[in-house]
């Protein structure tokens, strides 16, 4: 057994005096005002969606109320985003519209991220035929215009929120699979993976404990950025008439409705558009900040 003196000799080798990785990342994030603003915007959208009935000045606007006397009212003190064609408060409907958007995000990414990550991990780690099969299939899926398939699915099935979700999720996993595959493949080539296998670790251990933790950064950045794209995509679908059923407020269909009354009643398009823009910009800024923070290319 080595003496205490011997023990010291190894410690004396210069141990790098550095900030912990987490602290560094946090400092990078904090010094990025855009990311902070993005984070704030995302939190505000989430809170607004959860507490919509409390925040919206006219919660009943989310339903089937009709107030013809007040239809197409321009922005004013009472309805500061104006009212729509049946006199509902647009601001309240935008607040409620966030609910649909976020539900869509949770539904789509809840399916697409785990599926994509699992396939990407498997392809990157196992290689060989698994890799060929998964990357091949992913490449095929990438060749399909997502909107086209979503429309096709949406029109063949009945256009509901759940169907829209399924349609979007059907294609969305490909981007995650592609990304995780790229990272997992490079991680799998590192010596520590082989070392773990040689130490007797199972494939499951290697996938979940050795490789996955190294992919978390890219997955979280991609997921945040994707939230913005899903909102955007959902809005496009419902703009084309494949969203939720009326009267549930939905940002995309509100724009489509308002479009008929352009350019005079501009607020009918402008404020729902602003709602979409606010939510997507928030997620994008946050995702961009996270990207800088983790220093990954997504």
């Amino acid at each position, binding site marked *: 057994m*080595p003496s205490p003196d011997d023990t010291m*000799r*190894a410690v004396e*080798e210069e*141990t790098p005096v*550095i900030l912990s990785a987490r602290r560094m990342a946090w400092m990078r994030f904090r010094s990025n005002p855009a990311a902070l603003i993005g984070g704030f915007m995302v939190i505000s959208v989430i809170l607004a969606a959860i507490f919509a009935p409390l925040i919206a000045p006219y919660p009943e606007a989310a339903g089937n109320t009709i107030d013809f006397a007040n239809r197409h009212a321009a922005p004013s003190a009472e309805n500061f985003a104006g009212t729509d064609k049946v006199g509902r408060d647009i601001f309240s409907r935008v607040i409620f519209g966030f609910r649909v958007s976020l539900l869509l995000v949770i539904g789509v990414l809840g399916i697409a991220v785990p599926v994509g990550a699992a396939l990407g991990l498997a392809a990157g780690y196992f290689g060989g035929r698994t890799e060929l099969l998964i990357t091949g299939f992913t490449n095929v899926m990438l060749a399909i215009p997502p909107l086209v398939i979503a429309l096709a699915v949406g029109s063949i099935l009945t256009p509901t929120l759940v169907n829209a979700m399924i349609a979007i999720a059907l294609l969305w996993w490909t981007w995650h699979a592609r990304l995780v595959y790229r990272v997992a493949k490079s991680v799998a080539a590192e*010596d520590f993976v082989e070392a773990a296998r*040689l130490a*007797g670790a199972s494939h499951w251990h290697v996938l979940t404990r050795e490789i996955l933790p190294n992919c978390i950064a890219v997955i979280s950045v991609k997921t945040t950025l994707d939230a913005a794209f899903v909102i955007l995509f959902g809005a496009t679908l419902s703009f084309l008439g494949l969203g939720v059923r009326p009267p549930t407020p939905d940002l995309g269909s509100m724009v489509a409705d308002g479009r008929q009354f352009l350019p005079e009643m501009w607020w009918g398009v402008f404020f729902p558009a602003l709602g979409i823009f606010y939510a997507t910009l928030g997620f994008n800024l946050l995702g961009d900040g996270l990207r800088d923070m983790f220093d990954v290319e997504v």
Partner: protein
Amino acid sequence: MALLDIRDLNVSFTSYGQRTHVLRDVSLKVGEGQRVALIGETGSGKSVTSKTVLNTLPGNASVESGQVFWRGTDLLTRPDREREKLKGIEMSVVMQDPLSSFNPVFTIGHHLDSVLYWADRRAGRRRGRAERTAHIRQVLRKVQLADPDRVIAAWPAQLSGGMRQRVLIALALMNRPAMLIADEPGTALDVTTQDEILRLINDLVTEEGLSLLMITHNLGVVRMTADYVYVMRKGVIVEHGPLKQIFEAPQTDYCRELIGAIPPLYGAAVKDQPLSGEPPLVKLENVSKRFTRRHLLRRDETVDAVRNVSLEVPRGEIFGIAGESGSGKTTLARMVMGMLGATEGEIVIDGVRLTDHAEGRIDRRMAQIVYQNPGTSLNPKRTVAQTLDVPLHFAGLDKAARARRTDELLERVDLPRHFASRYPHELSGGQKQRIAIARALAADPKLIVLDEPTSALDVSVQKRVITLLEELRSDLGLTYLFISHDLSLMRNFCSHIAVMLRGEVVEQGTPAEVFADPRHPYTRALIAAVPVITDAEDAAKPVVTEAEKKRFLVSSAA
């Protein structure tokens, strides 16, 4: 007056609000025609010094105080524009890494021509493209590149590392500078190529009457290329003096330690490892490995990575496999580990044929491996304890037993227990290798394959890791298969050695035999190329003729 005169230079780096002092009162002089070396280990600040002179410090660095005189003028007080004019004309740098020093989507000629064109512009000269190309050809011949036109037309990816290194030197010589700053030239290359490069630099310095500032971590390189030496540690010049004085009568402990850490190639200090006299643990019989590259249009190409190798590794010994990059030594090691199957031949470990193991994969209690690169051999997201837990867990130990064994293992590799909670980025290179060794030990193996375990470490750290490995071998009765290109290390650490060239073992025996009387010309060339630190060692090296070199070495000249 000295050509370059650095006085009391202080430089610091700022990152995320933290300021680190990287150079402290550094003073250094290079006289006209003088060859000066600046030596130091990783993080000593030697490269920062050269970057300060060249004005290529990164944006977060700041010069706190001091002067850098060039022919009597303090460069630090001059505007960037003016300093820019010195680059490549008065002082030229020879870059370190020839692999990434050229833009991959432009030809070599394009790079050279650009540099020449802009140098002409600054000097107010006018030359046509043809004239410039003629000049480039001439300079390429000067660095002994046999076919300049081919080099000019080549893409960077088409040249070997040695050739690219020569082109980098040509770039530096292009405008007949007064001083050459060489930053670890040839470090990334094989020993024999590095030897050629260093000789070339030496010749050029003499022929062209240049001054040389050689920045390196290798004392052998210093001895070859310098007359005056500065030794740097943690941003401070700890000692300086003429080569002879530093090497023969070092004044500081650090210098003595540094010189003492270098394994001798010849002489009384050389250590002979005892032979165990036991039967072989590992036996290779006529083992070959062929890789096939499939093509659609052409015939498939095959590469014989390992050809007909037969070896016996006696139990309890350290068997070294020496060779340069591409010699097949790593492929051989991977076959022994059961990670690659042999195309032909048989590998027997502890009496069992490898092909008889399940999946052809060797039992983990039989063999483990320690990798070359401490940066990639540990999972950055897992603590030391978690890393060590894997083999222990799969060996079926319960939680308490695993914790106990982790402590034991850390103690075995001379690390304190509290290191168990550290992440790899909180460890130095040497400490990471210790953890990698501990992980290998955790599986309780009979054989450990050491794949260049110290080549990424500083010499002083290398010495401590090697001492540890020797202790472990005798305490635990381990057998090592040691893969390396470092012959002086192998001379002292191995009990058997096999030299590989292009997939074949060309010579094997005990180090004492092989080094005293190398039979194969390639072995002779390899030994002759090792940079040593004493004249006595240099004199003891085997002689190799140019014709032999030509036959067995891939020349970086053509």
